């Protein structure tokens, strides 16, 4: 679901980024007003979980892969606004350091995975679960919320891909950016997400929610002193060590091919906008280190990514805590 650069026109990227600005502003405002400073640390842990969830690729017949996002889970645990910021930061890190998702398409990726997914997931969860906690109804709500959330995000992604050939063509009538119209992009994206990827999101959401409710109930309670609890550290460690499982899924996710691969996927040509578009070389492209076995590079990338996210949010929480102390003084 990570849209790479040059699949969407710069105009589309600009519109999507502009659409995200008020969402980010509202989220930051809401977090500043309502979230205890100590809980900002948990946003980092949540972002790390989302980052790791996105590394577990699931294959589907036809040679493409997909993954869970974990946005609904974060929305259930910390609220949709916190989920929006956590997933946005995880996506930024993926784009900048690991080259997963485009720099220009960052706004579009955030719209799909950091806005649509957690907000839809949370609304459905609230509708079903109400105020029930640690209850079967809560888990059913979380599962359905996660499923509809990821499918809502996939549908938005498919529409963004599909409108490109309708809006942007050269004089010869060839698409400038993504060459697949809505008739191809919607079924291609939705078949995988309605089946296996949706199921992966349901399993991830319900399993981690059940674990967290049992092992670290302080995560969802407004306590002043929240530490990274030992069970969460263990879970994080297990997820990092298990990330190479994602490598078993051979193939590339639909819509995430390189410019050199797109012609062979059925398009028959490389659109001009993709061939001569913006190109950014990430520090560690595709979660790999040169000279290292792929599985080991994957583990190191997972460790570095998760650690950086936790450190970043801890420092933000610390800075915000110090500022509010100064304001009170």
């Amino acid at each position, binding site marked *: 679901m990570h849209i790479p650069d040059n699949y969407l026109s710069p105009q589309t990227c600009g519109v999507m980024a502009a659409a995200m600005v008020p969402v980010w502003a509202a989220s930051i405002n809401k977090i500043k007003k309502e979230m205890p400073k100590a809980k900002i640390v948990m946003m*980092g842990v949540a972002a790390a979980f989302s980052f790791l969830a996105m590394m577990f690729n699931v294959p589907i017949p036809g040679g493409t892969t997909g993954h869970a996002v974990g946005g609904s889970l974060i929305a259930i645990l910390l609220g949709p606004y916190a989920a929006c910021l956590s997933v946005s930061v995880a996506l930024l890190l993926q784009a900048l350091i690991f080259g997963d998702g485009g720099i220009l398409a960052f706004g579009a990726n955030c719209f799909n995975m950091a806005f649509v997914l957690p907000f839809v997931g949370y609304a459905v969860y609230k509708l079903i679960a109400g105020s029930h906690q640690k209850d079967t109804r809560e888990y059913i709500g979380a599962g359905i919320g996660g499923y509809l959330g990821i499918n809502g995000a996939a549908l938005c992604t498919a529409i963004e891909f599909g409108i490109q050939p309708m809006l942007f063509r050269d004089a010869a009538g060839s698409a400038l950016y993504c060459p697949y119209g809505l008739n191809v992009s919607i079924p291609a994206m939705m078949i995988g997400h309605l089946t296996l990827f949706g199921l992966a999101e349901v399993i991830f959401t319900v399993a981690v929610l059940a674990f967290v409710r049992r092992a670290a109930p302080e995560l969802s309670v407004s306590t002043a002193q929240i530490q990274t609890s030992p069970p969460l550290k263990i879970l994080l460690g297990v997820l990092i060590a298990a990330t190479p499982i994602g490598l078993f899924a051979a193939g590339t996710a639909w819509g995430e091919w390189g410019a050199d691969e797109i012609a062979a996927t059925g398009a028959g040509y490389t659109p001009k906008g993709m061939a001569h578009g913006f190109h950014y070389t990430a520090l560690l492209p595709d979660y790999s*280190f040169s*000279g290292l076995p792929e599985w080991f590079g994957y583990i*190191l990338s997972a*460790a570095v990514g*998760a*650690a*950086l996210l936790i*450190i970043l949010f801890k420092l933000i929480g*610390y800075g915000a805590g110090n500022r509010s102390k100064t304001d009170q003084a």
Partner: protein
Amino acid sequence: MRLNLKVMEMTGRLLRSDRENASRKPSPVAPALRVGAAVLCILLCALSQNAVYVITVIAVELLRLAMMPPASILRVIKALILPVIFSALIMLPAVFLGHPRTMLTVTMKVLESVMVLAVMNEGLDWREVTAAFSAFKGMAVFVLILDMTMRFLMILGDYSGKLLEAVMLRSVGKTSWKNAKVDGILGTTFLKSRQMAEATEEAMACRCFNGQYRSYHQHGLTWRDGLFLGVYAAMIAFFILTK
């Protein structure tokens, strides 16, 4: 003036460290083993021919750092910034000479070394570090010097602070005392330190103290220490594997 502020900052850090560590539980693993592991880690990184070992250590240290309190994280990052930028700048000509990897490798090794030490420092009290050195044979003189330095930093810092305050009270009008009196303050502090050193030597002789510290908390090897020795083995094995 700046020097004096630095001394005061150092004194403040020691006092703060004492206050923070007063309620902390002692390290579950023998401090000597932890210091040894840090030294071994830095040594192996320096010897490693490729980036694999260094990147792995950085990833592990980043994870350890992520689990620390935010104040500790901030201190570690502050300690990292200057050496990393400095080494990157020093190695910058390598990029223009066509060896960008050399710059990256050296900068990463500096980052790794400082990070290992800074993270270790956050987990250990300075007294534990001093005690750790005493566990190594022939390090008694080093421990004595280190301990004396730490103590006299506080005493002399306090003394020079008072001197500065006295100079400030006596200054009238617009005088350039900031520059003119620094040598006087430093000179007086030096003379005082000589007197104190002599007094300390006499006090040591009176108490039959030959500079050899005896630890009252005998830290025998526990099962945790045994497990920690596995970290040594893992580090060496990984180094050989990735060589």
